[in-house]
């Protein structure tokens, strides 16, 4: 009796969803305006598309309602939320394995695909992902630990990139000198921007940091005398192996080590360079978390008023978080410039900030492994879309899977917000303990209100 009535309710519910989907699909999918030969607009109708959308919504809703999914989902969530002692060693094992895989990655793909085939796998899937891992870890200090919502992080990435580009092209300063300079400059800008904006809290802080990110980009576009505007700065000196350029001539890296020249050398070197930079970011962050400054960041995220009642200067604490996050963004920016050999303002738009923030939120604010996993998923995932050319055989030649990147990221976000609203790794590990270190469940950890 109860069975049939619940089935009937599910059917009615699914029918409602189907109707709504169909209604939504009518203007979006069913109607299409195309110019004909004489350039006149004609209205085409695609009723099958609309019907398909309605049926898909109906079926998905019905399956969700009838499957015992809710119960299963709940047990899964609690199982992941409360890692046991065994779970802890498993996490450690996964981290060690992951690190080993990342260190060995260039060699693995070199052996699998040979020097020509490996280039793409090291560059697009290695270097590109690691840049975002590093940016995610840098932003994690600000968003994850200190709980300050920063929507303009890309500004510091841009400062680092332009610092190297300008110093190297105008004054011939070497990359190894520029790298710390780029970090210092970005930190300096972090403090400069931080002073006025860190009085604000929550949403206001988010809006102002967003504006600052845009201001930096617009300055880069319009200050043509220095930055060459939209055209950007080209022929930035490429990375050298501690002075040995990666070129074919007798003065190059290959000649010095007496090996045949190959463009893969530079890419492998870049891979290990960004890996080292990212690991430094992570190690410094993990270390700082156990120091008074890191505990103060987390306390700030938990309760700013309580911090002040204990004599903590919250403005200074926010500034250090902002400056340190900016510094790592600056390092990553200098690396970006030396890798591309070209920088232009279009590389530093809001979508970059949003992507980095999405990585941090998806990974779990405050978690290093989670952020790395999210960077791999988002950046690696959108690279993978380029591999899906075979889909053209199904959807026709006009189909370009990469166009669906943002749609898929959005979908992933929606799924994550339902399944794990606090990201992949949401529990928190205490920084000091008397008896045993127990992980803290996500629902107790505050998200910070700036």
């Amino acid at each position: 009796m109860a069975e049939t009535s619940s089935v009937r309710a599910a059917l009615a519910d699914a029918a409602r969803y189907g109707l709504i989907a169909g209604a939504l699909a009518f203007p979006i999918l069913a109607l299409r305006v195309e110019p004909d030969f004489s350039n006149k607009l004609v209205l085409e109708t695609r009723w099958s598309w609309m019907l398909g959308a309605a049926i898909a919504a109906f079926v998905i809703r019905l399956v969700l309602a009838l499957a015992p999914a809710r119960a299963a989902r709940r047990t899964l969530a609690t199982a992941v939320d409360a890692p046991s002692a065994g779970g802890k060693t498993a996490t450690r094992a996964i981290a060690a394995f992951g690190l080993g895989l990342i260190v060995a990655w260039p060699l693995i793909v070199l052996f699998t695909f040979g020097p020509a085939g490996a280039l793409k796998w090291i560059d697009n899937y290695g270097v590109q992902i690691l840049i975002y891992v590093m940016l995610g870890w840098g932003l994690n200090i600000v968003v994850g630990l200190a709980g300050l919502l920063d929507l303009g992080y890309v500004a510091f990435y841009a400062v680092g990139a332009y610092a190297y580009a300008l110093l190297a092209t105008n004054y011939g300063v070497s990359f190894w000198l520029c790298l710390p300079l780029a970090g210092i400059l970005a930190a300096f800008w972090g403090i400069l921007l931080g002073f006025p904006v860190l009085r604000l809290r929550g949403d206001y802080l988010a809006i102002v940091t967003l504006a600052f990110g845009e201001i930096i980009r617009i300055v880069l576009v319009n200050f043509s005398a220095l930055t060459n505007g939209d055209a950007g700065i080209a022929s930035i000196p490429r990375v050298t192996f501690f002075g040995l350029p990666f070129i074919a001539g007798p003065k190059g890296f290959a000649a010095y080590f007496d090996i045949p020249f190959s463009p893969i050398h530079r890419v492998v070197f870049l891979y290990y360079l960004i890996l080292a930079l990212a690991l430094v970011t992570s190690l410094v962050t993990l270390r700082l978390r156990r120091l008074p400054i890191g505990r103060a960041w987390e306390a700030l995220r938990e309760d700013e008023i309580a911090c002040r009642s204990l004599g903590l200067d919250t403005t200074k604490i926010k500034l250090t978080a902002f400056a340190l996050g900016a510094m790592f963004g600056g390092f990553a920016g200098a690396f970006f410039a030396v890798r591309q050999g070209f920088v232009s303002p279009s590389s530093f738009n809001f979508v970059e900030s949003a992507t980095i923030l999405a990585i941090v939120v998806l990974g779990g604010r405050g978690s290093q492994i989670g952020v790395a996993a999210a960077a791999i998923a988002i950046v690696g995932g959108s690279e993978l879309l380029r591999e899906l050319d075979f889909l053209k055989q199904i959807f026709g030649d006009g189909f370009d899977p990469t166009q669906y990147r943002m749609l898929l990221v959005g979908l992933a976000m929606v799924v994550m917000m339902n399944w794990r609203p606090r990201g992949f790794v949401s529990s928190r590990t205490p920084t000091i303990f008397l008896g045993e270190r127990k992980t803290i469940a996500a629902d107790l950890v505050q998200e910070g209100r700036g």
Partner: protein
Amino acid sequence: MAPPQAPSPTLLRVERMSMRFGGLTAVDDLSFDVRRGDITALIGPNGAGKTTVFNCITGFYKPTSGRISMAPDGAIDSAALDALTRSGARGGEGLHLLERMPDHEIARDARVARTFQNIRLFAGMTALENLIVAQHRPLMRASAFSLAGLIGAPSYRAAEQAARDKARDWLDRIGLTARADDPAGALPYGDQRRLEIARAMCADPVLLCLDEPAAGLNPRESAELNALLRSIRDDGTSLLLIEHDMSVVMEISDHVVVLDYGRKIADGAPAEIRADPSVIAAYLGVPDEEVAAVEQEIGA
């Protein structure tokens, strides 16, 4: 109660303080002294302005008018105080003008710590971490602004060990050693109250301000709290206490200030307050069961 002796020096002095929110005068021309080594209670019906007084003293609100002075190491000297007020400075030579200082400097330099009416622990951090964060200043100095800490210098390790020992002592005192590694937000209510007091004490205050520490405690917990507060006082920290529970007030306080509609209506030893007709009248304005309770407590 100890026999009366020469009055101890004044630690905190509130003079002619008013706090207005728009048209509402929450605190009206309030003056009182807190003496070193005392437990001073601030009582009054709901909405009398007690929490507002705390917020003014600890710098979370800036009073509309009035002067709040604090002498963490000595006694308040009227001549020095007037000179300081005229100089326009925030403080100097062991004297601080709290209405001129931002909140965190009041906690740090004037050494006034506080708890909150609705508990404000770092819920996602463990009990131990809460007590370590409160020792931020000495630890920060020992870590040489994180540089010595980053390289794991022995001097920093020693400082961290000392901070941990201090935290462990406080956990022992409040009976929470077994739950040191549990998140503060997961502790029972009574434990959270005591942890918040311990956290404030870890900031090494001279004056500890407690906003209704006994609220929501059962009689056994309340008795334990009285013992804890007395031991804090005996160890040399003076207390300023907001309390509704008259049994607590009468039992442990040395001095009582009564507030009604933002105005001070009585000020004196508990025995005097108990007999003061204006206090009884003020409490008649509150719901019946509370009046009965109050009358029973004060023996009216």
